[in-house]
């Protein structure tokens, strides 16, 4: 048996752990003018299992976005490791898509042009562009808007374009940073439902940042809770059967429990 084969056997045994993204002891300090150094991430641990929907829940300004940016490579952590399958990985080794709080579209490019921008940046061969653009615009129900400009779309539609742009790069893990927080609740609910459908169908892993407890409970398999000191103080699984309904009393109950935990944290 060759060394490679041995490796394969070993991989099979730990197939579950292999695909799990593990962050350990991530520390990040920021220099703030007038306030000196502030600790944004205080030895944070995070496990993201392949195919799961994981939410990072916490009040505004608690470092959730910073943690996302550490994973995406936009922020360099001061300490800590990122591992997958027992090996250290850098953001470049991961296949990631990012959906920001704002759509962050290039208003001077058409909807299709915005997706092309990401495909070009990711060095996707040009021959695949048209097919991917069509497929992913269709997926977010914007099949007819490819030639339209983002400035002529509503807020919800713009965020859909941003989702299509991230999907078009065909990432394994989708990072979503409060993507629905600036939308009206009706639009946001539609988009959450569509997101769950896509997640289900495309078998993506989603890491979702939110400050909305209800949103976190409705969407997630697992919720990580952070406080304003940059500590990840709890990990809670949401064992509510899918598809979930907004008016499910289980959701309201779980939401109340998580809120109590937050409240206790703040009081302490």
């Amino acid at each position, binding site marked *: 048996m060759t060394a490679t084969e041995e490796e394969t056997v070993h991989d099979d045994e730990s197939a579950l752990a292999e695909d799990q993204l593990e962050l350990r002891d991530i520390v990040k300090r920021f220099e703030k003018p007038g306030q000196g150094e502030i600790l944004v991430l205080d030895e944070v641990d995070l496990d993201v299992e392949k195919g799961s929907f994981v939410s990072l829940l916490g009040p505004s300004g608690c470092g959730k976005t910073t943690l996302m940016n550490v994973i995406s490579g936009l922020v360099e952590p001061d300490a800590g490791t990122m591992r997958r399958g027992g090996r250290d990985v850098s953001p470049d080794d991961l296949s990631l898509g990012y959906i920001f709080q704002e759509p962050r579209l*290039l208003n001077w*490019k058409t909807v299709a042009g915005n997706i092309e*921008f990401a495909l070009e*940046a990711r060095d996707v061969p040009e021959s695949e562009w048209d097919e991917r653009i069509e497929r992913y615009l269709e997926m977010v129900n914007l099949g007819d808007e490819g030639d339209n400009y*983002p400035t002529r779309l509503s807020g919800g539609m713009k965020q859909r374009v941003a989702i299509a742009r991230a999907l078009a790069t065909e990432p394994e893990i989708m990072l979503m940073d409060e993507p629905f927080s600036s939308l009206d609740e009706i639009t946001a609910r539609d988009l959450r439902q569509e997101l769950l459908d896509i997640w289900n169908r495309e078998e993506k892993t989603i890491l979702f940042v939110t400050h909305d407890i209800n949103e976190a409970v409705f969407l997630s398999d697992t919720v990580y809770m952070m406080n304003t000191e940059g500590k990840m103080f709890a990990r809670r699984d949401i064992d509510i059967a899918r598809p979930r309904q907004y008016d499910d009393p289980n959701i309201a109950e779980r939401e109340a429990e998580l809120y109590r935990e937050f409240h206790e944290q703040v009081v302490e």
Partner: protein
Amino acid sequence: MDRLQRTLYGVASIVVLLAVWYAGGVAFPEVLPGLLETAAALVVVLTTPGPYDNMFYFHVWKTIQMLFASLIVSMIAGTLLGIILGRSETLESTVSSWIYAWLAIPSLVIVFLSAIWIGFNAKSGYFAVPLVITPFIALNMWEGARTLDEDLTEMAEFFGAGRFQTFKDVVVPQLAPFLFASFRSGLSIGWKITLLVEAFLLTRGVGFMFRRYFDQYDLPTMMSWLIIFVVFLIVVEYGVLAPLHERVMEWRPDAEGVRVTE
């Protein structure tokens, strides 16, 4: 207002101007050259060779050459300078006061100094005109560079866009309105400086023609030259700049033919 209406208003304003001019020429002939006299002078300018046997288009061409060569140089230098100022706080605090000092130098002084340093030839013009307009463009582009959206830069960085792609698709489109504004102000300031250079230092170009007919106290011919160049600038604006601007800014929500969905 639809297109026809706008055209009608435009034609009406020209007719009113001509009427006022005609009346003024009759009332104050020593101040304002008569409309008909000017028309006659214009025909002469357009059909017969002037000084040194050069036709009118030779002079216009020479002026355009100096003006646009200077504009190209200034657009490049001013844009680079402006972007550097807008992107680097260190440079902004050290260099910005120099820009204001530069702007404060009267263009006439720059033209005279160029003549002393370089001589009474076209090279002085190619030196002086860019020197005068570059700081205006730099100031404009500096403002533009300060408004660049960091979020979009971050987005481009996340997707792994290279320097060139980021510049082409993210930076330049954000600067486009500032580039147009810069070009327009560069054009209007530059044409005045080009004229100064030609009037004081050279023996060709529209500026030289102004001085020559000023020396002869020939008001109708001076007026004809003014008309020729103003018409040229209007053609540049409405024939080139405005359509180009509209095309580049097509994506804006207030552009014509907007289709708002949902």
